[in-house]
């Protein structure tokens, strides 16, 4: 320690001194004095502040401060005073009153026990310098931060409802915990009066105030009266009238007054009132005792009857002798406030539709709700079974009831603001709920399929939704898949699903994703339904958390999305896999819809170009849905090596083709199929079927038509690609895709 100064007794103070005196580099602060004063150690320091030339608050390049440490107890934060006489007052994060020696500054935002564990002398000095820099720039109080409370909080807690802080107030909850009272207020009168408390609420509203410096917390009625007078309100006169009213006189000996003062605040002097603040105090005595001390009521000691005192006035009352206990006031959350705490960027409510209230749907909806995003309409026709309580939001009291209702109830209970809706039906058989389902489908900003059912995903893609999303797990429960349409629905979710199958079968980074799928089941994401394959709740919650985050991101992003998160259960590592969504060309005729990805077109064009003057070709791969009569072409394979290519013809060979297609089929859990043939036409020949080509199509019809699936022939020419789709019992569909310049 430096001999020039006394050695402080506080460890933290010693650390500051050691840093300022012994730092090998300039600390941009100078220690001027150390004094040991009773049970306090005090350091006088001049800070050198990093300042912008043009700054909204007149902080100076050198700012003197006094730090006061508890000499033998560093579990209290040091008090920081600005000792500059003309330090600007009335700023946010300063106190209103100048006390002996300077103006107190509110430096510490965090809980001191957390902060102090890593607060070295250097960190403390840097923290102070940084505070002054931010103050100068006007950024100590973030624009997004809630307005500064005008007085500090204390120990008893008052919980008020969300929204406007106007009364009248009624007590709906009263609880004592470790000597402290917790009171919950409501705006509606409870059906049955709560009898576990003895408070009478006095709730005046003060004139509006500009948000600014913290007033020193009043600890007696005199100080509170002075504070209220400064704000333009005569508290004692108003309180006198309230105490003398019949309701208060009736039970004056039993009831204790609780003061709930409403103060409207605004950001700037002429700005509209933006927020209300509540100040809450108790006085530790009954209405009768308070009335007597104010000299405005009289209580008969025998009968305990209280009456108001004729000509009584509080003018001569000893207000400073009447102690106050300030209460901490907290407000229950609505969705808007929840969004602020959750860091959600959307400013307004967003109606969402969840189809499926099971493992993924219930957990994702719950986490999204906790972010203040919603409200949800929940659609699910199942009831909650006992085993569902392991991995779903549902609890024992939901067992036997519809999942949709159970989830709605759970979501409504997160905040004060509910607004969630349940439609407890299967989307394929909505019955009397058809209109409600249709309305929800049309009005929801995003409709999300959580059902793990390809059929539901397909159904969703056909609905008049604004934007469709599907979120599901891989069969072993360690992969999460999110497929999302772009906002304009240029690519529909079933078309993205088809691309998903292609990539799963061909991408190395998705290897094994569907390997646990059972090819005898239609449901590929069967883990959640498969009781023989236990899935730990932590694993499910981890992936559901990622899905919930993705839902929030989708609201801020208009683009389509195809993303997989792969969880390694042993280490807990998660590997994200992002696949670009390809645009599609889509054409529809009658009941048949055909889509082909831009990747297929560009592959055919590339292979055609590489073939030079010869024709070339290959086979088409994709998925189809026999119920909805939809076929998606996702790949064009090149010509097998034994194909015959000539300037005027192409004969597709077969070498290695069968194992290749079988590999694609097994890699996609049986969802990728051979759909037909493609070939190219040379430059001078239009991409339209020749007689030979018609023969090929007849060949396809003969061999595939009877199988019930679609069969397709495509011709890739110089300027466009022609496609014909045949399907039993449906009309033949033809389409032409004009090529974009390359």
């Amino acid at each position, binding site marked *: 320690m430096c001999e020039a100064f006394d050695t402080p007794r506080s460890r933290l103070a010693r650390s500051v001194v050691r840093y300022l005196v012994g*730092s*090998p*580099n*300039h*600390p*941009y602060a100078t220690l001027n004095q150390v004094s040991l004063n009773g049970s306090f150690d005090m350091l006088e320091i001049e800070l*050198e*502040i*990093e*300042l*912008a*030339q*043009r*700054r909204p608050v007149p902080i100076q*390049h050198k700012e003197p401060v006094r730090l006061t440490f508890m000499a033998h107890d560093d579990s209290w934060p040091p008090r920081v005073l600005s000792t500059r006489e003309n330090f600007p007052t009335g700023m946010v994060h300063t106190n209103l009153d100048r006390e002996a020696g300077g103006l107190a500054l509110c430096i510490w935002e965090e809980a001191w026990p957390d902060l102090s564990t890593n607060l070295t002398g*250097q960190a403390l000095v*840097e923290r102070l*310098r940084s505070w002054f820099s931010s103050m100068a*720039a006007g950024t100590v109080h973030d624009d997004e931060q809630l307005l500064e409370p005008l007085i500090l909080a204390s120990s008893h807690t008052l919980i008020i409802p969300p929204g406007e802080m106007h009364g009248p107030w009624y007590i709906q909850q009263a609880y004592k915990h470790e000597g402290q009272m917790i009171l919950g207020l409501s705006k509606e009168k409870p059906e049955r009066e709560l009898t576990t408390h003895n408070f009478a609420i006095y709730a005046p509203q003060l004139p509006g105030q500009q948000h600014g410096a913290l007033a020193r917390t009043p600890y007696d009625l005199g100080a509170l009266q002075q504070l209220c007078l400064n704000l333009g309100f005569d508290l004692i006169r108003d309180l006198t009238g309230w105490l003398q009213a019949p309701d208060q006189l009736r039970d004056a000996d039993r009831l204790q007054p609780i003061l709930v003062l409403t103060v409207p605040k605004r950001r700037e002097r002429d700005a509209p009132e933006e927020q209300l603040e509540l100040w809450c105090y108790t006085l530790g005595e009954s209405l009768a005792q308070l009335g007597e001390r104010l000299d405005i009521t009289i209580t008969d000691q025998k009968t305990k009857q209280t009456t108001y005192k004729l000509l009584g006035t509080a003018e001569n009352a000893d207000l400073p002798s009447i102690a106050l206990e300030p209460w901490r006031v907290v407000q229950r959350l609505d969705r808007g406030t929840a969004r602020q705490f959750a860091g959600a960027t959307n400013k307004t409510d967003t109606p969402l539709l969840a189809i499926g209230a099971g493992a993924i749907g219930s957990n994702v909806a719950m986490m999204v709700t906790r972010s203040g995003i919603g409200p949800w309409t929940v659609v699910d026709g199942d009831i909650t079974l006992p085993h569902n309580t392991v991995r779903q939001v549902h609890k024992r009291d939901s067992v036997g009831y519809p999942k949709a209702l159970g989830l709605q109830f759970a979501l409504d209970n997160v905040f004060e603001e509910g607004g969630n809706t349940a439609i407890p039906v299967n989307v394929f058989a909505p019955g009397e709920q058809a209109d409600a389902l249709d309305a929800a489908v049309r009005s929801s900003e995003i409709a999300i399929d959580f059902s793990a059912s390809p059929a539901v995903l397909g159904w969703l893609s056909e609905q008049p939704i604004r934007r469709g999303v599907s979120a599901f797990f891989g069969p072993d429960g360690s992969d999460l898949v999110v497929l999302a349409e772009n906002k304009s629905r240029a690519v529909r979710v079933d078309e993205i699903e088809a691309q998903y199958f292609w990539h799963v079968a061909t991408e190395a980074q998705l290897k094994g994703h569907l390997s646990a799928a059972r090819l005898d089941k239609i449901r590929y994401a069967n883990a959640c339904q498969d009781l023989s394959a236990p899935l730990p709740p932590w694993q499910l919650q981890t992936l559901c958390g990622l899905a919930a985050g993705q839902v929030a991101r989708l609201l801020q992003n208009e683009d389509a999305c195809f993303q997989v998160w792969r969880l390694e259960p042993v280490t807990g590592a998660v590997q994200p896999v992002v696949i670009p969504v390809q645009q599609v060309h889509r054409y529809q005729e009658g009941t048949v819809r055909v889509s082909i990805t831009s990747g297929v077109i560009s592959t055919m064009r590339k292979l055609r170009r590489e073939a030079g003057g010869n024709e070339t070709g290959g086979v088409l791969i994709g998925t189809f849905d026999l119920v909805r009569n939809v076929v998606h072409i996702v790949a064009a394979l090149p010509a097998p090596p034994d194909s015959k290519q000539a300037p005027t013809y192409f004969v597709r060979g077969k070498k290695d083709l069968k194992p290749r297609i079988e590999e694609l089929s097994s890699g996609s859990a049986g969802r990728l199929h051979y759909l037909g043939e493609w070939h190219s036409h040379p430059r001078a020949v239009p991409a339209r079927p020749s007689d030979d080509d018609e023969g090929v199509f007849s060949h396809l019809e003969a061999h595939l038509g009877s199988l019930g699936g679609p069969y397709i022939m495509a011709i890739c020419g110089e300027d466009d690609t022609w496609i014909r789709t045949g399907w039993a019992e449906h009309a033949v569909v033809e389409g032409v895709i004009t090529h974009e310049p390359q």
Partner: protein
Amino acid sequence: MHIVRFFPIGNADTCLIELANGRRILFDFADMHNPDDADDKRCDLEKELREILGDDKVIDVVAFTHLDRDHCHRAKEVFWLDHAQKYQDDDRIKIQTLWVPAHAVLEQGVTGQARTLRTEARHRFINGEGIRVFSRPEELDDFLTERDIDPAKRRNLISDAGTLCPEFNLEHDGVEFFVHSPFGKRGDDDVVRVRNNDALFMQATFEVEEQQTKMVLSADVTHEVIDDIVKVTQHHDREYRLEWDINNIPHHCSYKSLSDEKGDEKTEPTATSKWLYEEAGQTGGLLVSTSKIIPDGDEDDQPPHRQAAAYYKSVANQLGGEWIVSMEHPTKTKPEPLVIEITSAGYKIRKQTAKVVISTAAPRAGAQ
């Protein structure tokens, strides 16, 4: 954000400007430190500069305001010079465009660093690329015609006082440079001449998010030159071209840049200098003296002079700004480069405590 740096190099000048778009301008280079003197607190300028430049060893513009030793010392050891192979190796820093006043081309009888730089300036000027000469164009006619070069073909490489340097503009670079000196002055014989010893005097105007911050770079001019500059600028109603938020005050805080008289405690500036500092200085303005520590007494005739410092300091106080001496920042015992950020809120001096342990190599460890 743009960054301006001054270096603790004693009574000498070096100012590096890094623009937000990555382009860089270096005003003077004077590496004055003595590596053999452990008490020399001047920084190793070459090392500092190379650390800032990193792998990209090309500077868009290097300006030598004049060729005195305290403005160009060790330049020929550090920079790639086009005129001779011995100044060319991969480790040297390349100069895309050289800015010099006319006398750096025309001056006779110079030696050492100045002579090498004069040769480089002449080489680039004769070849017609990689240079800008600040002068009345006519002053260079004889030099060119003697070398069989049509002066008209070099006009684009010459900037006269009262013009903007074409290498930078506000729209694309967020900065423009206005030339005040060298300038032509009509003599008693009614002939306009550029004084041969006139150094560059410029105003840089930075723009960030439509907010301007102005810096005056005044090299080693005397108060007579400042008087002329102020009068000419006022005559053309261009007072805004002398406004400043940052002022690199001239000649290492010499009283001669303020007045002929030093004064006892505080130099009283000429009326025009007074206008330049007190009227053209903006609120919160910063004055930088690139000099040694301001002395307590008057033993040394050489600058800095404490009386001149007292005046500049009073200007900083009056403007609510700052007064920084390069060899005193942040402390006299351990001076460091002065780093100034230019943002939409004006200038800001970086005051960050050095993280020495992780920003330098650890000492050698081992059993022996």
